[in-house]
């Protein structure tokens, strides 16, 4: 009997952690989960919830997780004004589940995002102003969200940062950019040997890219930005500098989820996915951010979105020192543009 008492006590302690707690304040940090079709997805809300304005980060990958965006700079320069929602998509970051790989697909994730928005409004009030920010693969996911049904009416603004809404176009633009920059670099004799390999690959693979070719272009694009000194290199070591222990990162979950999602079958389905043809339905104010040295999602993608959405309230801005991670590589530029956009549309 004496042995049972501590475990009965433990059971109550465990379940008490799940009691609903909603905080309205200027320096909030609270975690809750959305359970949807086999996945329990983590949402971390930080910052100024009393503003009733929420910026939802829709991360890349698939499978990268949202922890990387929760930097001290964003905490000090966006969270002080608005609340930021760091959402781990299914099979990413701290999101949990059992055998749920069958549900890892774009329509399901679009439904997840819709429910994230509905949940934030439920917790913090239906009058909450919500802005969604899609980075990299998050660009595809937010494009899917914005063009489906009447979803866009749930948000006040769409921020597209180094995103991709059209994978076939993405591959063509990456190839073009690698060729253009590569030829310049060879002429200037900068990393000529590695650029020559890339140029040769691009010259022999010109269009109708297979999934494997697309992955190879991605690999070249990832390395390409590291050849430019003005672009800050982002790798696992730099990300881990943000004190993962202090921020309670479940590191093995993040890494194993990333590995599973990036190798998952649905990446093959995404290879032919595009939303260019549907963007005409978007009438929501849109901010498009891009790094000049982003070879992974070149600025031509932002231009395509800009030209196709059906609103005059749109702006495209390019960071001159950033690669694929504008929020990390040009933090002041990113925060200034995001804050200005939210301020004028909240």
């Amino acid at each position, binding site marked *: 009997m004496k042995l049972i008492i501590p475990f009965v006590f*433990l059971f109550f302690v*465990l379940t008490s952690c*799940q009691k609903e707690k909603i905080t309205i304040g200027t320096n909030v940090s609270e*975690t*809750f*989960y*959305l359970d949807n079709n086999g996945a329990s997805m983590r949402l971390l809300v930080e910052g100024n919830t009393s503003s009733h304005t929420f910026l939802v980060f829709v991360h890349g990958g698939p499978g990268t997780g949202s922890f990387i965006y929760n930097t001290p700079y964003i905490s000090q320069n966006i969270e002080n004004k608005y609340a930021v929602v760091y959402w781990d998509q299914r099979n990413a970051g701290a999101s949990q589940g*059992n055998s749920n790989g069958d549900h890892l697909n774009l329509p399901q994730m679009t439904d997840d995002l819709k429910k994230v928005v509905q*949940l934030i409004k439920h917790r913090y009030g239906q009058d909450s102003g919500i802005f969604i920010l899609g980075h990299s693969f998050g660009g595809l996911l937010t494009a899917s969200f914005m063009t489906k049904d009447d979803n866009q009416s749930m948000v006040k603004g769409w921020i597209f940062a180094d995103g991709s809404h059209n994978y076939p176009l993405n591959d063509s633009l990456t190839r073009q950019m690698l060729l253009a920059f590569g030829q310049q670099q060879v002429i200037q004799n900068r990393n000529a040997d590695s650029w020559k390999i890339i140029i040769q690959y691009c010259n022999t693979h010109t269009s109708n890219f297979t999934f494997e070719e697309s992955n190879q272009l991605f690999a070249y694009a990832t390395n390409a930005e590291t050849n430019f000194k003005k672009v800050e290199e982002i790798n696992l070591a730099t990300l881990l500098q943000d004190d993962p222990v202090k921020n309670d990162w479940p590191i093995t979950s993040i890494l194993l*989820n990333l590995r599973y999602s990036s190798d998952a079958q649905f990446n093959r389905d995404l290879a032919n996915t595009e939303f260019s043809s549907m963007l005409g339905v978007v009438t929501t104010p849109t901010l498009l951010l891009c790094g000049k040295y982003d070879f992974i999602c070149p600025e031509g993608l932002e231009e395509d979105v800009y030209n196709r959405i059906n609103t005059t309230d749109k702006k495209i801005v390019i960071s001159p020192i950033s690669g694929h991670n504008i929020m990390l590589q040009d933090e002041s530029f990113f925060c200034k543009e995001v804050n200005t956009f939210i301020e004028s549309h909240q």
Partner: protein
Amino acid sequence: MRFLKLYLVLLISSCSIHCFSQSADSVWVEKKSSNLSSSYISSLIYPGARLGVELPVNTIYISKIRKSGKTRVFTKDRFVTANLSWYHHPAFHDNVYLSVGWTMRRTKSNGFMTEFSPEVGLSRTFLAGTTYRVDDNGNVSIKKRAGYYYTLFSVGGGIGYDFSITQRKPFSIFSKFNVLMMFPYNSTIYLRPVVEIGLIYKPFGFLSLKVKSKSRTK
């Protein structure tokens, strides 16, 4: 095929000859008490606790005569263990897991011990936050006791000191490094390193079991 059989027979015979050469064994049955263990478990900074029972299976007392003429004496114990463990990872989950294992422990005559223990079990996580469901009409509800069941495997090894050998006190202290593996976790696996520091208490006459013991001189 015939050659293969012959080869296998020779291989097994040579192994047996090699392993048991120059050994003198005596076997008997003795009654041994079970042990209770409790420990603090931790992954990085995240705390947890563990309670367990060790049921003795067999013991081998070994005396090894070295080339120098000195005799080295140590004991090999085998236990079936049952453990209830819990850890807390803020903003992620709490995990309660029940496991059974096979512990192989070797204790020297000076009390120093090493052990290795594979375990298998069942884990139940509790998500570290309110968990919501949103239906297709946008209605939101709270999911109670949200979390998941996982199959769990664990392997661990460690060192310790048995005070019953040198000081006749009925306890040992130990430190172990374990790796937990849970699955299916998001259709893949979840790994977690766990450091354990604890105490094994050996109450006299507690759950006494008849154990096959062996004495071996090499």
